[in-house]
């Protein structure tokens, strides 16, 4: 159908408005660029992508553990191995996320309109701590028992213990395998889009500002 749409009809379309907004704010060349400013040449720049790579393995190993249920990894060698993959990918995830955070701090990466990118990244770090915390509580072993018995006092003191009950395995497990991974994934997507929209920040004191 080659019928032309009247300009006023297209202007009133919500769908067309979103398309125009996306095309203007994040064209595909900027979302997936094949060139970067020449100052992007340090190992610091790979900490972020390694964090995302580790998160991929955290989620995939977690999906396998969730599929077979919380008892599986205690009783089978295959389950223990996937738990080990989950455990070490979480350790790598945090190591490289912290390195990424420090790197971006010393690059003052919030300059030139990039403060929201920093803020989402910091929120992601805090949500990740909560996700890991619920994971430790959902282990169903001595460690999770002791963490729950102790952590309850801090949460109760803050008035949240009656709502976020660390002694309730069902609540912690549900948060760990569903709500918090979804929240982190959404935040990662938003963070990446923010980075691609503004581009990498220019060196401190450089003439002009960042490339997109």
């Amino acid at each position: 159908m080659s019928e032309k749409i009247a300009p006023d009809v297209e202007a009133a379309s919500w769908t067309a408005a979103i398309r125009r907004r996306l095309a203007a704010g994040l064209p595909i060349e900027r979302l997936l660029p094949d060139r970067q400013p020449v100052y992007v040449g340090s190992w610091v720049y790979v900490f972020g992508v390694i964090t995302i790579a580790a998160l991929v393995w955290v989620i995939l190993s977690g999906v396998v553990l969730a599929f077979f249920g919380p008892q599986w990894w205690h009783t089978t060698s295959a389950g223990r191995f996937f738990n080990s993959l989950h455990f070490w990918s979480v350790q790598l995830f945090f190591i490289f996320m912290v390195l990424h955070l420090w790197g971006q701090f010393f690059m003052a990466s919030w300059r030139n309109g990039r403060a929201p990118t920093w803020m989402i990244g910091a929120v992601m770090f805090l949500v990740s701590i909560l996700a890991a915390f619920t994971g430790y509580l959902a282990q169903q072993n001595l460690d999770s028992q002791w963490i729950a018995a102790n952590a309850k006092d801090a949460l109760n003191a803050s008035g949240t213990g009656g709502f976020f009950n660390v002694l309730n395995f069902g609540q912690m497990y549900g948060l760990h395998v569903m709500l918090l991974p979804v929240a982190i994934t959404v935040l990662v997507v938003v963070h990446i889009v923010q980075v691609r929209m503004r581009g990498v920040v220019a060196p401190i004191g450089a003439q002009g500002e960042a490339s997109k």
Partner: protein
Amino acid sequence: MSTRIDRANGVRTAPYDLVKELAIALAGTLALILILAAALSSPDVPSVTIQSWAQKQPVDLVTTATGELAGSTVSAGYGAPYNSGSTSVQSLGFFSPQSWAGARLSVDSAQDFVLKPLQAASTSNLDLAAALSQYNGAADSQRSAWLDAYGKALKDAKEDNGQVVVADGDYGPLPVMMASLLQIARAGALDGYLLSSGGFYQTDYTRPLLFMGDGSYLSSLAQDQHLLGNQWGMMNETGSYPGQTWLWLYTLWYQIPPYNGNANADLMVVLTMLVLSLALVLVPFIPGIRDIPRWIPVHRLIWRRHYAD
């Protein structure tokens, strides 16, 4: 490397393959994770049950249960969110979110951990039924006298073939009650009873964990695994594995004044970390903090080629 000036913003650019970088990162991290998992496995010290507690340290279990009846345990007088007590309620002046939130998870430690399980067991035990009847029918002062005397006797109690033996004294029905409680605990029935909340499916371990937390067996196992608060336990893991090392700052406050030993330490630490977390999010807007990267020139190392040019 072919560089060129970007027409849009005048920045010199060079080829950079983001997708290839991600693919290499995925392969590299997977290889590392596989090696670590295969070589080092992961920690899994089995959970403690009330049954194992009763079998390994029956005196501690009976002492804890007696304390629940006397109202002297942590759970018995805890306060919100479990009951109307006040011994574990924290506040800073008028600021007490714990009190404001109220008791939302009702726990009566004497009834829930001791008397109700015994009542359930008494249907097939006439001696226990008589002991419970005597206990429930006694005046408060009489019950307190029995509990006080029995509590003191338990300090010198001995274990004999799974039974708790105390010196002779006037303890009323308590020896019969506690022998029965120990018996059902050793059989594993108390684990199931405390977990049960009436329905078939159960996932809430509030009661059994509170009961075990009142005793010293769980904390002695945690101490062996360097998990206690004064051992930086919050960021530790059982065995020699790395734990939640990202909680180092949270754990640090509990080791230093004015937090350590303070009755309101938890509330103080939570508030401190809330302020610091908010500060982390708002770094770009905090004068002084946002200027640190200019004062400490780590960026000259990161962008050394740029500055060299």
